[in-house]
Each structure stands twice: as structure tokens, then as C-alpha cells.
């Protein structure tokens, strides 16, 4: 099993190196095949590991080599194979394979085709390292790896000003999050003298409550940065400047869930701090709601999906906060299916319209896209939470836990569910229904995408529809929850709900979804714009960027300007120039001593010697 596990991580790295060192000579086709095969084989290795693991119990550590060994700090390069890591690996490699395949067609003819696959393979490697690492330091390596790949891929079209600054924005927001992860690591190491997960979990109970809260809040900052939660969420919509497969893979299905993964991974520490978990739940609930409101007013198809991603991750964070870790993972997996599907579907739409992303210029695409349309339809129904698709079960699990934990958060989450159904229906109607509004800008009719793009859509649609069976509530086993809970130290379990309550809650969820659906259908049928419903406040992300600009951006610019004109010009330059001038002036004075007459020098020597002699005589005598 160990060998298979090593292969999971190694294969994408091999793919990355193969593309890196194969020069620019190889064809696009060969690059695509190598990149896709590397990740595909990694998926096969994951499945093998999974099957072999089913016969094991608990956690298996695969030690590779020692990386750092300084005093009490021992950092091995080792993999931790447990249910959580395997679940993550399965959907990461699986969806990566599909998206690699999709990219071979979507990116065909791009100038930097080879570079795209290079980054994509490196990303998958980093993500798997993050997930499989057995200690926080190695996780941090993967954490930074996915961050930098995200930066490269967001600013993939770096000649575009907006793409270049979106990349920078993503990078800087993530740095703030990294600070959280680093301080969590520092705090843990100071108190427990180990950074391996097993060691931290064993020693966690010795942490004082205050320290545990501090660590949990640091972890929350890390998760907020990576997973785009309040207050660090507004980099994700800008990250849509990257190519659509990147949005689907990195900014929807995998990387942005790393923050949630980290929180779930650290569940033994989270258990110790009820206050910390409250904050997590509130942040998650608020993010879910705020992002959903913003999504209702966006005009760019990818922006809607981006805010929808933020909102869905908000649900996951909420689930972590109220202690239902397995529900968070369940939604993470289901979300990976349907959000990848939606993004790839939107990519197919954009592809068919030659790069048009504005929903006002779409409409009536259903009959032109015979495969994209039905798959997108299924993705839409899934994310809206219509039974019996995966989204309904995953969101339902979180909503019913929220009901037991906190009625206020439940109300917020339910409202978000209505909004989710509403904005997704709006997107669907604007894109596929109504009249065709693209004619003016198009020379030929929209065309369906090649098979390499539609095949992943079909696979993901099937997964979205049937993904719910992973964890059906009435099945005695609670299949996935039971499996994943092997790597989780749970808080006191939430109060058990009677069957009647469960069914009532499920019906309420379904009604919420249908309410949103119906509202959007009534309001948006035959319309492309409704200024009254697209509040400028929502469209401009609750003025969040403006607030940051006013509070951080502009004051810092002022400080920089002052530093540039006053500190630099007067203090630093003043000191340097002043010193130089002092030397120059004193030299001008001292030059006069050099008369050029040997006699003067000799006289000076004579008096000097005389002084020395007088001194010596005085001292001796």
C-alpha cells in the first residue's frame, strides 16, 4: 500500500518534470497526453491505495526520508494515509484527470499550451502533498505550492492588465492566510515540540483553553485565506481571470477546499475550543449568505459561479464550526462534482460563443449545445438543492446539523439555500433559455464542444446526480460519514434528531430550493436585465474592495508617499549626502597643509618628534 501511496504523489511530479525537460519540440497533443496520463495514473494509484486500505484500520504512515533535523525539530517527509486523506485524494485526482482531459481541447491552440500543463501537473502534485503530508510543515509546502500555481494560472494571460493584477491579488490575500497557518505552527511547536499530526493530536489535550482558541483562530485565518472566507474572500472572484479549466479545478473543486480540509484535519485541536468553533461557524454562515447575495447581481457567468463557490465553502466552514465534520467533507466532495461540472459547462458555453462571458449576451443556447445543456441542467438542479441530487443530501446534512446547533445560523443557512437556488436559476435562464441575444456579435452559430470537453461533463453530471448515495441519511451505515469519521476527533455529538424532525427539515430544504427556483423563473423569464434586482451594492461585492482600499490601501499609499518624499529624500539622503559633504569640506581645509615645500614637512616632523621625545622624557623621568 505504501508504494501505491507514494505513486499518488510522485506521478504528477513525474508528469511535471517530463513536460518541463522535454523541451519546446513536443507537440500539443503529446504534452496533453503526458499531462493527463500522469494525473490519470495517479488516480489509478489512489484507487489501488483505497482498496488496499479498506483492509487496514486507523492511520498508516509511510516514511520516505528525513527532511529537517534541527535540535527538537524533526520534520520527516512522510505520508499519512487515513480515511480523510484518501477521500480527498480520490476526488482531487479523479476531478483533476477529467479537467486535464477537458483542457487538452479547451486550451488547444493557446500560445503557452505547454506551460499550462506544466503548472497544472505541479498544482496536482502540491495539492496531493498538502493532503497526504503527515506533518504541518510538509502540508505547508503543498499549501504554498498550490498557492503559487494558483498565482501562475490566474495570471496565465499575463499580458492582460486585469489578469496580472488578479494574480497578484490572489497571491497577497493568500499570504495573509499563510501568516495564520505559520502562527498556528509556531504556537503548536512552542507548546508541543512536534508538528506531526499524530504527535499534535496526542499532545493536544495538554494545551490550555486560551492557547487552543488562539491556535484555532490562527487556523481559521489560514482557512479564510485559502478557502476565500470573510474577510479574505474577494480574491476568488478576481481569480476568474484565469482559463476556465483552472477556475474549475483550482478555484472551485480542489484548492479552495484546502482550508476546510485543514480545519477538519485539525479536529482534535478544534475540539478543545468551543469559542473558536463558534467564530468558525459564524464566519462560515456569514460568508455563505454574503457571497450568495453578491452572486444574485453578477453579470459575468464565471463571477456568479465564483461567488457561488465562496458561498458553498461558507457552508462547509459552517459545518466545521458546528462540529459536523463529515457533513463538511460530504459537501466538499459533492461540491467538487457539481461545481466542476458547472464551471466546465460554463467553459463550454464560453467556448461556443468565442469567449463571451457576459450573460446578457447569451440566452437560448439550449438547442445549440446538445450535450452541455442537459449536463448543465443537472448541475444546476444539484447545486440548487433539488432532491434527489447530491447537493440536496450534502446541504441537507449541514442544514439539519445547523438546526440542532443554532437556530439563528440555521435560518441564515436556509435563506442562503433559497438565494442559491435563485441565482443559479437566474444564471441558467439567462444562459440557456429566452431569446438569443448573441447574434449581433457572432458570425457563425454556436457549436458544441469536442468530445474531450463533453466527456468530462457527462461523467461529472453522473457523479453529481448519484453522488448523494455516498452518504444517504437513512442508510443504516451512513457510508461516507462512517469512513471519514475514522480520522476525526468529534466534539460532543449533536443531539440526535427524531425521524420526524429529519423528514420535516428535508421537506423544508426542498421547499427552500423550489421557492428560489420558482422565484427566479418568474422574475427572469424573457428578461436579460432587471436593475431593481441587481443591486449595485451586491454587484460591487458589498463595497468590500472599496473598504479595503479606504482602510488599508490608501493610508498605506500615503505612508509610502511620505516615506518616499520625506524619509527617503531628507532623512536617508540627507544623512548620506551630509556625510559626503562633511568629508569634502574637511578635505578642502586639510589640503592647505600640503604646501609642497619639503621644509615645512621636515619642520612638522621635527616638532612632532620633539613632542614625542618630550612626552617620553616626561613619562620616564
Amino acid at each position, binding site marked *: 500500500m505504501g508504494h501505491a501511496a507514494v505513486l499518488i504523489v510522485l506521478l504528477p511530479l513525474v508528469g511535471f518534470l517530463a513536460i518541463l525537460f522535454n523541451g519546446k519540440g513536443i507537440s500539443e497533443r503529446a504534452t496533453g497526453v503526458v499531462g493527463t496520463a500522469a494525473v490519470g495514473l495517479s488516480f489509478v494509484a489512489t484507487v489501488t491505495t483505497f482498496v488496499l486500505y479498506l483492509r487496514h484500520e486507523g492511520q498508516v504512515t509511510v516514511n520516505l526520508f528525513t527532511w529537517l533535523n534541527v535540535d527538537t525539530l524533526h520534520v520527516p517527509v512522510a505520508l499519512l494515509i487515513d480515511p480523510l486523506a484518501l477521500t480527498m485524494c480520490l476526488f482531487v485526482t479523479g476531478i483533476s484527470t477529467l479537467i486535464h482531459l477537458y483542457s487538452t481541447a479547451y486550451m488547444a491552440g493557446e500560445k503557452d499550451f505547454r506551460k499550462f500543463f506544466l503548472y497544472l501537473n505541479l498544482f496536482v502534485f502540491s495539492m496531493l502533498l498538502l493532503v497526504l503530508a503527515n506533518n504541518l510543515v510538509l502540508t505547508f509546502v503543498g499549501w504554498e505550492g498550490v498557492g503559487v500555481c494558483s498565482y501562475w494560472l490566474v495570471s496565465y494571460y499575463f499580458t492582460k492588465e486585469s489578469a496580472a493584477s488578479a494574480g497578484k491579488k490572489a497571491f497577497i490575500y493568500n499570504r495573509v492566510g499563510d501568516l495564520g497557518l505559520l502562527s498556528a505552527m509556531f504556537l503548536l511547536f512552542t507548546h508541543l515540540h512536534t508538528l506531526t499530526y499524530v504527535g499534535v493530536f496526542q499532545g493536544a489535550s495538554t494545551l490550555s483553553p486560551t492557547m487552543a482558541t488562539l491556535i484555532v483562530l490562527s487556523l481559521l485565518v489560514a482557512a479564510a485565506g485559502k478557502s476565500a472566507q470573510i474577510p479574505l474572500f474577494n480574491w476568488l472572484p478576481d481569480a476568474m481571470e484565469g482559463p476556465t479549466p483552472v477556475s474549475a479545478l483550482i478555484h472551485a473543486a480542489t484548492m479552495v477546499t484546502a482550508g476546510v480540509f485543514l480545519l477538519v484535519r485539525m479536529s482534535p485541536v478544534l475540539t478543545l475550543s468551543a469559542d473558536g468553533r463558534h467564530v468558525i461557524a459564524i464566519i462560515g454562515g456569514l460568508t455563505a449568505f454574503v457571497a450568495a447575495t453578491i452572486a444574485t447581481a453578477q453579470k459575468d457567468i464565471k463571477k456568479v459561479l465564483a461567488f457561488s463557490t465562496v458561498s458553498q465553502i461558507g457552508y462547509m466552514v459552517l459545518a466545521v464550526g458546528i462540529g459536523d465534520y463529515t457533513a463538511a467533507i460530504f459537501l466538499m466532495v459533492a461540491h467538487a462534482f457539481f461545481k466542476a461540472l458547472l464551471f466546465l459547462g460554463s467553459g463550454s458555453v464560453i467556448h461556443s460563443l468565442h469567449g463571451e462571458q457576459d450573460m446578457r449576451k447569451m440566452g437560448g443556447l439550449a438547442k445549440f449545445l446538445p450535450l452541455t445543456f442537459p449536463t448543465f441542467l443537472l448541475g444546476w438542479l444539484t447545486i440548487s438543492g433539488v432532491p434527489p441530487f447530491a447537493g440536496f443530501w450534502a446541504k441537507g446534512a449541514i442544514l439539519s446539523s445547523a438546526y440542532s446547533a443554532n437556530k439563528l445560523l440555521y435560518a441564515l443557512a436556509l435563506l442562503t439555500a433559497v438565494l442559491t437556488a435563485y441565482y443559479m436559476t437566474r444564471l441558467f435562464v439567462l444562459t440557456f433559455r429566452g431569446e438569443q441575444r448573441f447574434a449581433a456579435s457572432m458570425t457563425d452559430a454556436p457549436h458544441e464542444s469536442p468530445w474531450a470537453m463533453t466527456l468530462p461533463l457527462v461523467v461529472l453530471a453522473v457523479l453529481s446526480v448519484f453522488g448523494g448515495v455516498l452518504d444517504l441519511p437513512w442508510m443504516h451505515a451512513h457510508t461516507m460519514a462512517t469512513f471519514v469519521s475514522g480520522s476525526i476527533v468529534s466534539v460532543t455529538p449533536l443531539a440526535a434528531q427524531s425521524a420526524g424532525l429529519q423528514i420535516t427539515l428535508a421537506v423544508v430544504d426542498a421547499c427552500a430550493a423550489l421557492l428560489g427556483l420558482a422565484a427566479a423563473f418568474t422574475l427572469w423569464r424573457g428578461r436579460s436585465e432587471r436593475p431593481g434586482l441587481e443591486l449595485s451594492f451586491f454587484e460591487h461585492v458589498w463595497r468590500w474592495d472599496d473598504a479595503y482600499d479606504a482602510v488599508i490601501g490608501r493610508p498605506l499609499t500615503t505612508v509610502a508617499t511620505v516615506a518616499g518624499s520625506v524619509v527617503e529624500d531628507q532623512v536617508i539622503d540627507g544623512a548620506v549626502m551630509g556625510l559626503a559633504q562633511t568629508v569634502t569640506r574637511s578635505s578642502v581645509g*586639510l*589640503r*592647505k*597643509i*600640503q*604646501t*609642497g*615645500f*619639503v*621644509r615645512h614637512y*621636515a*619642520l612638522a616632523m*621635527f616638532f612632532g618628534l620633539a613632542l614625542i621625545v618630550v612626552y617620553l622624557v616626561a613619562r620616564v623621568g
Partner: protein
Amino acid sequence: MNVPAAWYLVLAAALFGIGAFGFLTRRSAIIMFMCVELMLNAVNLTFVTFSRTLSDVGGQISVFFVMVVAAAEVTVGLGIVVAVFRRRASTSVDELTEMKG
């Protein structure tokens, strides 16, 4: 006949004084050289004197060093003087002020 050491020292001091005075007052480079030699030999004389009175041969060895260095110095110095004389037809050091600050 045994001359007291003090006399040698007085003679050496007188020679050194004459040399120093000459060095400071004369302008001809040749004469200044001669004055330098005078001062060096005055010092040599004190070395030898103390070597005798203290029965320490180190003083006399120092004298050899001084003589060798003086010979070398004169060689180089006179070479420079000859070169300067060829260009200016004068050995007055007061005219050589190009290097002043």
C-alpha cells in the same frame, strides 16, 4: 686615553643639530642630502657609544643597518635629483611644489 661617553654624546647631539638646521634652512637638494647623512651618522655615533658603555653588540649591528639603508637611500635620492636636474637645470627643492594640495 679614555674619552668619557658623555663627550661622544655631546658631539653626536651637535652633529645632529647641525644636520637638522641645515636640512631645514638650505634649499639645494644635494646639501639637504648631506645634512640627512650628517643626522644619520650622529645617530650612528650614539649607537656605538651606548654599545660600548653597555657592552651590548646590538647597537653596533643597528649601525650596520642604518649604513646600508642610508646607502640605498642616497642611491635612489641622488638618482631623483639627477633626473630633476636634467629637466629643470636646478636642484632647488622650493621649486618642486607641483604636488601641493
